[in-house]
């Protein structure tokens, strides 16, 4: 190794990043070469000067200023993104609670409004059940066939309709459609157009809070007794009677077998839905249908309470 080669490697030599062989060669060279030895000494001095440079301290405001810029940037970045992806930045605990509150609130509101909706639907039964009863005297009008509800109705009759419902509800008696009403309606029908019916539909809809012709009362067309399957026949029977009485109904019970009780209940029509709801709490209701006279203020329900077979419980 000549001096040039050695001096080229002195820097790495000083740092100790050199192979053992090279190191040995350089050491050997340095022993006899004063020039290279001096070069190494100068190099080491130079390195020491550089190393001895004092460190400067960052200014006191440094972190603050950096963070102000960083936050500014972060906000700008989020501003754009969050506008689009707001729901993805959910603060889970907070928003989950809010969501649960909303759901619970909605369910509560729905529950508390439900009876009103149901009540509003009851009169539909009367109106809908009426036409079949009065179908006979109808003149065969092509437009009327199959869509009795769509028969055009005059404004005069509309008010009559509404009045009739009020009476219905107040007295809870058998009214339905009187023949007079039928005749009048049929007479009025040809004179007016379908547009009139639409108006009626709207008006009645808003005034009575119902629009749906087929109300939730899907029971009306069904026949046969309501079958309730229970474990404890006696308790269930008592309970059913109790429910009926609480709703102002009259009950009479027969027990044709030891596993069966038949309860006949006369109940206000607008209580039927509630009654069925309560009944479902008593046992497994198979609503094959129910017996009752359509279009009446009160209905007769036959409830068959049956003991669940194969069950040994008392």
């Amino acid at each position, binding site marked *: 190794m000549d001096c040039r080669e050695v001096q*080229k490697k002195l820097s*790495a030599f000083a740092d100790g990043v050199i192979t053992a062989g090279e190191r040995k060669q350089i050491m050997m060279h340095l022993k006899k070469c004063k020039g290279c030895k001096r070069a190494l000494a100068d*190099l080491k001095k130079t390195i020491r*000067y*550089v190393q001895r440079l004092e460190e400067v301290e*960052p200014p006191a405001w*440094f*972190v603050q200023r950096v963070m102000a810029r960083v936050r500014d940037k972060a906000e700008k970045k*989020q501003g754009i993104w969050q506008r689009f992806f707001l729901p993805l930045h959910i603060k889970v605990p907070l928003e989950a609670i809010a969501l649960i509150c909303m759901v619970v609130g909605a369910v509560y509101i729905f529950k508390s409004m439900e009876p009103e909706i149901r009540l509003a639907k009851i009169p539909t039964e009367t109106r809908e059940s009426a036409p079949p009863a009065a179908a006979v005297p109808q003149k065969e009008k092509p437009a009327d066939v199959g869509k009795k509800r769509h028969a055009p109705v005059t404004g005069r009759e509309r008010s009559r309709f509404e009045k009739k419902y009020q009476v219905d509800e107040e007295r809870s008696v058998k009214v339905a459609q009187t023949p007079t009403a039928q005749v009048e309606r049929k007479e009025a029908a040809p004179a007016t157009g379908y547009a009139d019916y639409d108006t009626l539909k709207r008006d009645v809809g808003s005034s009575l809070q119902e629009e749906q012709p087929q109300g939730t009362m899907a029971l009306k067309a069904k026949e046969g007794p309501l079958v309730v399957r229970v474990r404890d026949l006696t308790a269930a029977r008592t309970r059913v009677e109790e429910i009926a009485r609480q709703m102002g109904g009259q009950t009479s019970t027969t027990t044709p077998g030891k596993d069966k009780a038949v309860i006949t209940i006369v109940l206000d029509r607008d209580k039927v839905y509630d009654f069925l709801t309560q009944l479902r709490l008593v046992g497994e209701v198979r609503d094959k249908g129910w017996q009752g006279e359509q279009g009446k203020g009160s209905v007769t329900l036959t409830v068959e309470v049956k003991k669940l077979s194969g069950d040994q419980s008392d």
Partner: protein
Amino acid sequence: MRGTKQRGDEDLAFVTLCQEGDADAFEHLVRRHQKRMLNIAYRVIGNYDEACEIAQDAFVAAYKNIAGFQRKAKFSTWLYAICINLARNRRKRLTTRHFREGRSLDDPIATPDGEMAVDPPASEPTPLERLEARDIRHHVQGCINTLDVDFKEVLVLRDIQGFSYEEISAMLKVPAGTVKSRLFRAREGMKDCLKKVMGEL
């Protein structure tokens, strides 16, 4: 060699938080690395105010790009590389300006506290003992300033910041052999410069 502690592991927790959008976590990283960042920038650029600007920019750039930080290297290595790059760009701009203005060997050398006249090998060399430590430092910084940016960087990272050859290689994205040869030339340049300005080492 100044202490190079393995800080990567401590940083990573904060880095993860930053990547999740937690700006506060970044403050820890700034506090932890501000001094080193500033010193790297300061020694490369040779001016305190400029260095503060560069270090700030580097931190902001790091935050902006933190999502792209893959854990291949240590966070500090990645961070200092940003700083080095910004300093280099700044330096380039300054150098270009100097070139346009034209330079002479007798032009004063920029130092942190202003400018320092080039002191050619004097006929009567001043003994080192009589130079105050502060003056020596000024000479040293002045000499660093005269180095080419490639050499300056390795000198600052190795002899001032005490990084290993591997770390420097990672920061500058050059092979370790290149670091070695650049360092040799940087030190030679320093030696010559110091001899020139101080007369004798």
